[in-house]
């Protein structure tokens, strides 16, 4: 089967088509909101680029498309900030965006923001799942190789195996679960942003720095606590072999120095003995 036919066959799979539709719909929403949100020729040009990149991500399987979309989202504002055309933060352009979106009183504008979050989330999830179906889901390993189809000169070469997810495994249920979960994360993001926007000051540091430090500490603390709990859970699930090895490793770490001296002398003695025994 040629490479071209392979892709065509994949695009005909119902599972792939479901995610294609999801990504296209999400991209349409993103582009619509961006066009509605921004004014100016430069911004509209950027929106066209965003649409092209988004489409390339879906049709041509451009892998970093979600990342590019994120970068392109407010690139014009960043350029304006760098060029000194606007002041940071941007109070005059979109006053509604400065407030917590979900909790703001004017739902029409803030609903747009929520929709953008949902659309981005849907696009990212759909695009990465498409990558799993069409590119690879398991990280590539240079040790796993297969024979590539013969080239023009008729020689076959080895290439890394790409373990894709079988398209036949895609069920409508998983897409529904994804769609149901999207608003939850969007709302959670809004809440986090709301918390992050609250004026906080400690140690006489500026509010921005205080919030940044607070957010960092909260994140690091949460990761630490959760990883500790998961680590404890993992310890309770250890097999006898793992437990034995862990205890043996603990003993080795505690007595490493003494054991090293003893065994080094023993090994040295054995080598000397052997060298003396060997005929010249």
């Amino acid at each position, binding site marked *: 089967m040629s490479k071209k036919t392979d892709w065509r066959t994949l695009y005909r799979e119902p599972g792939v088509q479901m995610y294609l539709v999801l990504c296209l719909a999400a991209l349409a929403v993103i582009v619509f909101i961006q066009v509605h949100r921004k004014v100016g020729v430069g911004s509209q040009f950027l929106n066209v680029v965003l649409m092209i990149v988004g489409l390339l991500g879906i049709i041509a399987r451009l892998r970093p498309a979600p*990342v590019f979309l994120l970068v392109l989202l407010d690139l014009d504002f960043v350029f304006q900030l760098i060029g000194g055309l606007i002041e940071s933060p941007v109070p005059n352009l979109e006053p509604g965006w400065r407030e917590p979106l979900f909790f703001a009183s004017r739902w029409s504008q803030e609903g747009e923001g929520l929709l953008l979050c949902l659309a981005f989330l849907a696009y990212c999830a759909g695009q990465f799942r498409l990558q799993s179906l069409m590119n690879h889901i*398991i990280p590539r390993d240079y040790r796993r190789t297969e024979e590539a189809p013969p080239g023009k000169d008729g020689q076959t070469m080895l290439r890394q195996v790409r*373990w894709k997810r079988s398209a036949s495994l895609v069920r409508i249920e998983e897409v529904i679960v994804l769609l149901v979960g999207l608003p939850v994360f969007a709302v959670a993001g809004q809440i986090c942003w709301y918390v992050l926007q609250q004026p906080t000051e400690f140690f006489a540091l500026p509010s921005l720095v205080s919030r940044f430090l607070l957010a960092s500490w909260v994140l690091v603390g949460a990761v630490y606590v959760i990883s500790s709990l998961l680590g404890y859970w993992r310890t309770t699930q250890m097999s006898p072999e793992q437990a034995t*090895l862990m205890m043996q490793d603990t003993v080795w770490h505690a007595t490493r120095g003494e054991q090293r001296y003893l065994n*080094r002398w023993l090994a040295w003695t054995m080598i000397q003995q052997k060298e003396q025994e060997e005929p010249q």
Partner: protein
Amino acid sequence: MITARGWWFLLVVVGLLSVSVCAGLPVLGVVTLTLLVWFLASLLLFQVRLRLQHGQLVLEREVRDERGPVQSLWQEMSFVVQVQLHNDGVLPTLYLRLVDRVPFGVTKIAGESEIDGTTRPGFPLSLKYHIHCTAPGQARFEGVALHVADLQGFFYARQFLRLPQVYRVLPALADVQGHIPTVKRHNLLPSLGSHRHRRAGSGSELLDLRDYLPGDPPKTIAWKVTARRDRLITKVFESEVPLRCTFFVDTSQSVRVGATGDNALARLVEITASLCQATAGRRDLPGVCLFDEASVTTYLRPARSPRHIVQIMNRLAEAAMLQPASVEVSVESVLPLAYSVAEELYPDLLNRHVNHCPWWLYFWSPRSPATMRLRPLRSRSSREWLWPMLRRGLRASWLWFRQYILYRVLLPVMLLLYWSLPISILIWLLLSQRQPFLPRRLFEIDFLFPALLLLLLYWSLPVWIMILARRTFLFRWFLDERAHYRWRKQLAALLSMRYELGPGGTASLLENEEQLVAYMQRFLAEHQVPYVPPFYGLQGEYLFAAPDKIEVLSRALLHAVARGKDNELFVLLVDLLELEDQLEPLLHAIKVALARHHQVMIVCPWPPGLAVPDPKRQEELEARLLGAPVSDVAELRRLLMQMTALRMQRAYGRLRRTFGKVGVSVLCAAQQDSVQLILNRLERLRRQGWRVR
């Protein structure tokens, strides 16, 4: 845990979030924060589900042929392997990719040994494929590798469900003509009385006539001949006493060299199995003696029961899987293979939570030069002595310098100076009150943030340099050595636990190279991983000649002769090429056997890929090699092969002459029809008649 795709996504999201917070871009901030929350929640969910499915997966494997499940496999036959992964939990699993590890001794001929999907309670994940057994030995199914991932490909975990199952691959059943039957035959015995054992006995076939002796039973008198000759003549019948045949099979290091199933040992095992079956098929009694350079490992006295034949086949199958091992090989040559096998089969035991190697240990406690095996000196001439001694001295000096000066003194001092330089300058500026160099408010935010960033960049510069320059020669060498150090420690801990060496086992294996090499080779042999060790030692000597086996074989032969009940046939399947100088004990044992009216023949395995001995071709080859030009590498390689073949053919000729002097024939086990040749030879020997004691 997090894949490259996941790391890129996370880094970009966190970076853009920081930009949005600093630059005051709320849209980008909210979107990236939403994505970050989604990513972290997915990670948590993945971890929790991974923990939940731990211990809930049950693996089942069945190997079957057309009649049903089997316990042993047969060479040159195909079988079906069925693997099922059951979920005993409540929830469906994450996305899985199940990869069954096909044993090295067999070949997958159809079907897929991997499958992906999820498994739910009552809905196992199953796969099925066909294997073909090419060589006798053992097929060890280790288990299945489980690659777990989320649907986005952000997170990944690898597990290995171990379910070791060892199946013996018994040598193919062959008939007298060497044909492999398509259906297994349980009874190959011919009807009684089909022997051609030319000695007097109580059989039904007439062997000879002789004069009557007092005591002869009257029923044996040949009355017609008696009447014709006018004196009493007695009929002598053939004996039905079966022939006892013992096969001495060489399993020493010299025949193990090569890929398992494709080396001289596999050939010897095949020949022995065929000969045993053929011998048993003629209602003779086959016995087997397996020996190596250390001792006789198996001795099965000649017998005829079906159980005995099965026992011989089992022992031969076990012997066929023996792999070459030598304590003379270096750690570096075995370590990468052993570690990669351990990484594949025991990922849970190499996890840093249970088997940890601190990153700084390589610098603080590297391998001691005192316990490294350096190239020994030769003292034959000054040219062979001076340069190796110089090399050895330089290497030892470099190792000592590296351990005690570079890693423990120079490197830490340099790094300390480098890292403390900015703080020292700052303290100096503060103490010397040099105001122009310092801002008015040192801890002002406009100064502090960039200064901290610069400081972090400065401090992490050595790490960045190492990351960027890791592909250059110097750093690659350094990183390789550091990786080898970590592999060594982790493997030492694993082997110490596996072979129950006690709490001090790890340290012992870390320091004692010889011990570590021995255990690594044992580990590889247990998992039947083909391993080609270096053939030559530090002094350039061939490591796998195994001359001690001649002494062992001689003792075994004398032992068999001493316990021989009748005139027996001893077939020595042994590699004696290029050991002509050390054949004295064997010649002595053979002479004893011949003096006791036994028969001896030798079957010598021939190295695969070399031209078989042929006197006419040998002369041609010699003439061709004399003036052969060498134009390129391929030509040189061909020439080397021809020279090796010539060397072996000469050695074979010498061997034939040596044993020919005592009346023992030597056969070459190279061709595919060796079995038939040997059987014909046996038959000829049988028909020659036996000298009566």
